[in-house]
C-alpha cells in the first residue's frame, strides 16, 4: 500500500504536535511526582523519621535477679537456682510433631505441660519460642545440645528458679514466690511492668511477700529492633537493671531446724528470741510444708492435702495463732498487783481449791487447794485462787495495762504474714465489742490468762524477754538488707520496779528449779544454763474430765514460757502445743530442749539433764531428724 506524500506529511505533523502535547503533560506529571517526593522526603522528613524509629525499636524488660535470703550466719534460705528449659520455635521446627517425638526419645517430657505448650504454640506467632519443658537436668540438656542438628527449632535455655534449700524449715518465715495473679496485677500501689511478664514470680507469703519491694529489684531494659510482625532482628543496646537486695534474717537456721524437728508430730509453735536485741532466733510452726512445691504452681492434690490436714500446716501458728495464754499470764497479774501496791511479797492468800465470787464458784486447778500461798509460791505452784484474789484487788484495767506493757495485745511490725495482735481486754473493750458490762468474773478469768485474753507465741516470747530484762524488747526478723545492718529497736527500760521484777523472776526460777514447781521435771542442771519459766494450760471449752479421755480437738493447749540463763538472760522461749494437754507435761520439755540447743549451739550434753531422764533423752536425741549442716541432708531421710 502506497501512501501519498501529502497524507504522510500531514499525519507526521499531527503526530508531532500531539506527541509534543503528550510529552509536555508527561513532564508536568513528572514534575508533580518530584514535588511530592520533595514534600515527603524533605519537608516532612523529621516527622516520618520519628515514626520510622518507633516502628522498629521496641523496648523489652530484663527481669532482675531476685534478692537472696540468708540466715544470721550467712546460710542460704532462698536462692535462685539455674534451671534448664527447652523451648521450641514452631517456624524453625518445620514438622513440630516429628521434632517432639525425637525429643521425647531423648529426655523426659511432662505430657501435661507438653500438651499445654503445643496448644499455646498454635495460638502464638510461629517465631515465638514456647517453653515445652522446665527443670531439666544438665545431662538432659547436654543430650539435646549434642543432637541439635536433628532437632530444628529446639533450643536449650538457662533460667532462674527460686529455690528454698531449707525446704520445710523456713516455709512460714521465708514463705514462697508464685505466679502473679489477676488481683495482684490490678493492685494500684504496685504498677511495676515486670508483673506483666510471663513467668515472673512474686512473693506470696512471709518475708518473700513482705519484703517484695526490696527483693524484686528493678527491671533492666533492652532496646531491640523488631519488624512489623514482632520478630526480633537484633539487640541495639541494653541497660541492666538492679538485682534485688539480699536479705539476712536474724534466724539461726541450725536452731530453726532443731525447733522444727523437735516440734514435729505435733500441731505446735515455738519462738526463740534474743532477750538483748530482740532478734528472733527461731520461729517454729508445725507441721510445715515444702515451699518449693509452690514455686511452679502446687498440684491440686498436694494443695488439698495441706488444706485438709487437721493440724493446719499452712498458717504460721507462732505469729498468726492466738491462744489464751493460760497460767503464763500470771506474771502479768502479779506484776500489776505489785505495781498497784495491793500486795506485798510476803502476804499470803489461802487457797482451799476454790473461791466464791458474786455467787459463782471459781476453781483452782488443784481441787484440794494449795493452802497459804505467797507470790513466789503462787507462781511456782501456779495457784489460781491467789490470782483470783489479785484480780479483785488490782482490777482489770491495771492488769490489761501491764499486759500491754509486756507486749501482749501489741502488733509487732515484723515482715511476716498476718502478724496477730491478740487481745488484752478492758471494760471499754467489752462494752464496745460485746455490748455488755464487765463482770468481776471476767477479771478473774483474765487473771489466769483465760476468758478474753489472747496472745500469740511471739508475744509470749516477747513478754518473757521483757520480764527477764526489764527492758522494752522488740522483735526483729531482718538483720540486714544488702549488707546494711537494720536498727535494733527498743532496749529502753520499761520503767518497772526492779524489786517487783526480781520477785517474779524468783517465782519463775522456782517453777523449774525447785522441787514442787510445776516445771521442775524439765529442769536444767548446771548453774550457767539454768532456766526460769512458767507453765500454762489454756482451756479449750469447759470440762471436768481428763485430757487423755477426750478427742484431740477438745484437749487443752499446753504452753510454756521461759528464759535462760537465769543469771544472765540471753534467750527467751515460748512453746505452745495445740491440744497437747498440760503445759508442764507437753510444752515444758520441748522448751527446755530448745533452750539447751540454743545455748550450746548444738545438741547439749546429757549432763544438762536430770540423771533419771538421761537414757530417755539420749534416745530422743538419736531419733530427732536433724539436718546435717555439712551436707544439708536430713538425718534419717534415707529410711
Amino acid at each position, binding site marked *: *500500500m*502506497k*501512501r501519498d506524500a501529502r*497524507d*504522510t506529511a*500531514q*499525519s*507526521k505533523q*499531527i*503526530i*508531532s504536535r*500531539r*506527541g*509534543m502535547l*503528550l*510529552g509536555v503533560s*508527561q*513532564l508536568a*506529571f*513528572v514534575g*508533580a*511526582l*518530584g514535588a*511530592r*517526593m*520533595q514534600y*515527603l*522526603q*524533605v519537608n*516532612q*522528613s523529621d*516527622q*516520618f*523519621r520519628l*515514626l*520510622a*524509629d518507633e*516502628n*522498629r525499636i521496641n523496648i523489652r524488660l530484663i527481669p532482675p535477679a531476685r534478692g537472696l535470703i540468708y540466715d544470721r550466719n550467712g546460710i542460704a534460705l532462698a536462692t535462685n537456682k539455674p534451671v534448664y528449659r527447652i523451648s521450641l520455635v514452631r517456624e524453625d521446627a518445620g514438622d513440630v510433631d516429628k521434632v517432639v517425638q525425637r525429643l521425647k526419645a531423648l529426655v523426659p517430657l511432662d505430657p501435661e505441660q507438653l500438651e499445654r505448650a503445643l496448644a499455646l504454640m498454635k495460638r502464638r506467632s510461629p517465631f515465638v519460642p514456647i517453653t515445652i519443658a522446665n527443670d531439666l537436668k544438665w545431662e538432659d540438656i547436654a543430650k539435646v545440645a549434642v543432637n541439635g542438628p536433628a532437632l530444628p527449632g529446639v533450643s536449650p535455655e538457662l533460667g532462674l528458679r527460686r529455690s528454698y534449700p531449707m525446704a520445710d524449715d523456713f516455709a512460714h518465715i521465708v514463705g514462697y514466690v508464685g505466679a502473679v495473679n489477676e488481683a495482684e496485677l490490678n493492685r494500684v500501689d504496685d504498677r511495676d511492668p515486670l508483673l506483666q511478664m510471663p513467668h515472673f514470680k512474686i512473693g506470696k507469703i512471709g518475708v518473700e511477700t513482705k519484703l517484695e519491694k526490696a527483693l524484686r529489684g528493678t527491671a533492666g531494659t533492652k532496646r531491640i*529492633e*523488631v*519488624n*512489623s*510482625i514482632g*520478630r526480633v*532482628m537484633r539487640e541495639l543496646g541494653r541497660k541492666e537493671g538492679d538485682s534485688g537486695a539480699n536479705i539476712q534474717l536474724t534466724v539461726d537456721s541450725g536452731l530453726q531446724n532443731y525447733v522444727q524437728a523437735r516440734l514435729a508430730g505435733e500441731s505446735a509453735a515455738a519462738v526463740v528470741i534474743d532477750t538483748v536485741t530482740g532478734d528472733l532466733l527461731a520461729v517454729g510452726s508445725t507441721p510445715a510444708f515444702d515451699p518449693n512445691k509452690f514455686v511452679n504452681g502446687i498440684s491440686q492434690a498436694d494443695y488439698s492435702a495441706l488444706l485438709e490436714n487437721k493440724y493446719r500446716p499452712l498458717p504460721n501458728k507462732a505469729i498468726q495463732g492466738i491462744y489464751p495464754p493460760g497460767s503464763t499470764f500470771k506474771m502479768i497479774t502479779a506484776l500489776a498487783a505489785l505495781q498497784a501496791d495491793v500486795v506485798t511479797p510476803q502476804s499470803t492468800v489461802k487457797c482451799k481449791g476454790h473461791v466464791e465470787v458474786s455467787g459463782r464458784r471459781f476453781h483452782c486447778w488443784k481441787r484440794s487447794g494449795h493452802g497459804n500461798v505467797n507470790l513466789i509460791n503462787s507462781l511456782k505452784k501456779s495457784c489460781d485462787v491467789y490470782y483470783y484474789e489479785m484480780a479483785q484487788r488490782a482490777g482489770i484495767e491495771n492488769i490489761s495495762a501491764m499486759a500491754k506493757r509486756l507486749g501482749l495485745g501489741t502488733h509487732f511490725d515484723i515482715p511476716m504474714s498476718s502478724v496477730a495482735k491478740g487481745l488484752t481486754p478492758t471494760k471499754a473493750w467489752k462494752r464496745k465489742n460485746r455490748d455488755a458490762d464487765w463482770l468481776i468474773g471476767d477479771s478473774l478469768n483474765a487473771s489466769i490468762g483465760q476468758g478474753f485474753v489472747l496472745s500469740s507465741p511471739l508475744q509470749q516470747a516477747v513478754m518473757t524477754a521483757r520480764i527477764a530484762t526489764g527492758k522494752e524488747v522488740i522483735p526483729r526478723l531482718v538483720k540486714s538488707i544488702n549488707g546494711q545492718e537494720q536498727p535494733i529497736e527498743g532496749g529502753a527500760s520499761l520503767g518497772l520496779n526492779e524489786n517487783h521484777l526480781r520477785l517474779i523472776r524468783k517465782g519463775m526460777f522456782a517453777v523449774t528449779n525447785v522441787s514442787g514447781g510445776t516445771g521442775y521435771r524439765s529442769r536444767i542442771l548446771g548453774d550457767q544454763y539454768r532456766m526460769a519459766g512458767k507453765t500454762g494450760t489454756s482451756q479449750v471449752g469447759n470440762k471436768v474430765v481428763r485430757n487423755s479421755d477426750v478427742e484431740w480437738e477438745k484437749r487443752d493447749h499446753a504452753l510454756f514460757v521461759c528464759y535462760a540463763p537465769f543469771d544472765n538472760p540471753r534467750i527467751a522461749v515460748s512453746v505452745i502445743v495445740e491440744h497437747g494437754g498440760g503445759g508442764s507435761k507437753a510444752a515444758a520439755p520441748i522448751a527446755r530442749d530448745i533452750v539447751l540447743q540454743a545455748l550450746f549451739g548444738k545438741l547439749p550434753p546429757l549432763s544438762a539433764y536430770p540423771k533419771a531422764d538421761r537414757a530417755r533423752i539420749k534416745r530422743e536425741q538419736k531419733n530427732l531428724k536433724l539436718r546435717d549442716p555439712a551436707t544439708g541432708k536430713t538425718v534419717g531421710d534415707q529410711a
Partner: protein
Amino acid sequence: MSYLEHNVKTVPVGPQKILSLNWAVIILLSAVSGIGFLMLYSVAGGSMTPWVEPQIKRFALGMGLMFFVAMVPIWFWRNMSVLAYGVSVILLLGVEFFGTTNMGAKRWIDLGFMVLQPSELAKLSLIMVLAAYYDGLDLKKTSRPLWVLIPVLIILLPTALVLKQPDLGTAILLLTGGGIIMFLAGVSWYYFAAVIAAVAGAISAVFQFRGTAWQFLKDYQYRRIDTFLNPESDPLGAGYHITQSKIALGSGGWTGRGFMQGTQARLNFLPEKHTDFIFTTLAEEFGFLGAISLLGLYTLIILFCIFSAMKNADRFSSLVIFGVAAMLFLYFAVNMSMVMGLAPVVGVPLPLVSYGGSSMLVLLIAFGLMQSAHVHRPHRTR
C-alpha cells in the same frame, strides 16, 4: 509499498545497524536496571539471592531479545502486529482456563521453563496493533465513528479479559496506553472529551451502586479506594501499605540512611518490598536525591524516545516509539503515585527495578521495537 520500504536503501545494514542504535536509551535502561539490582541486593539483606541473581539473568536475556528485535527491520514487526495481538488475546483466554492462581488472582501461565504473564504481552501487542491500524488508515477517516469504534474494540477486548483476572492496574494501563495511541494518531478531541465525561459519570456510578447487587468493583477494590482517600483511618489494616510506605519514604530525608541502612523495608514493615514497593527502599536508603535521580533517568528515557519519534517520518515507527515511551511512563508514574500516596494501591511494578520476569522481558522487547524503529527510520536527505 509503503513510504518506509520506498526508502529502504538508506537504511543501515549489517554491523552499521549496531552503531545506529539509540545508545543513550540503552545506557539509561541499563542504569535503571542497575539501580534495581542494588535495591534488590539491599532488600535481601545484602545477598545475591533470592532476587538479584535471577533478575540479572532476566536482564541479560531481555537485553539479548532487545538486540535481536532491534536488528529485525521494523516493517517485519509491523506485519507481525495482528498475529502478536491475536496470540496475546488467546493467551489471556488461556489464563482463564489454565492459569495458576496466586494471591487470589489468575494472572500467570506456567510454560514449563518460565511463568508467563500474558497481560504484559498484551500491553506491547496492543501498541503494535493500534500503530499498525493507524499506519494503514487513511488520515481523513481517522475521526469517523466507525473507524474510531474499531480501535476502541481492539482496546476493550484484552482490557476486559485482564479485568476479569482481576488485575485493575494492568487494565488501567491498557486502557490509557491504547487511548494515548489513538490520541497521537489524531482522533478528534471531541471523542476524548466525551470519554472523559463518561468516565467521570462511571466513577460516580461506581460509588452510587456500591453495596447494591449492581456494584461494579470487588469489595477489596472499594476498600483500596477508601484507604487511598483516607489512609490514616485504618493505619494497621487496609491503610497499612500506604502509611508504612510513606513512613519509609519520609524517613529517607535529603540523602537517605545510606545503602543497606534502611530499616523499614528490610524489617518487613513494607509489603511487597521487592516488587511493587521497591521504590520505598530506594527512597529510604538514598533519600530525596536518590529518588529524584531515578525519576530523572526515567524522564530522560522518555525524552530520548520523544525526540526519536518526532524525527521519525514513518507513522508506524513514530506511534510505536511514542507508545513504548507511554508504556514506560505509565508504569513508573502509576507505581510512584501509588507508593507516594497519590493513587490507590494497584499492582503495578516499578519498571526494570521491581523484581519480576514478565514485565522486565516485555519492557526490554518493547524497547527492542523502539530501537528497530529508530535504526530502520527513513532518511529523507539521501
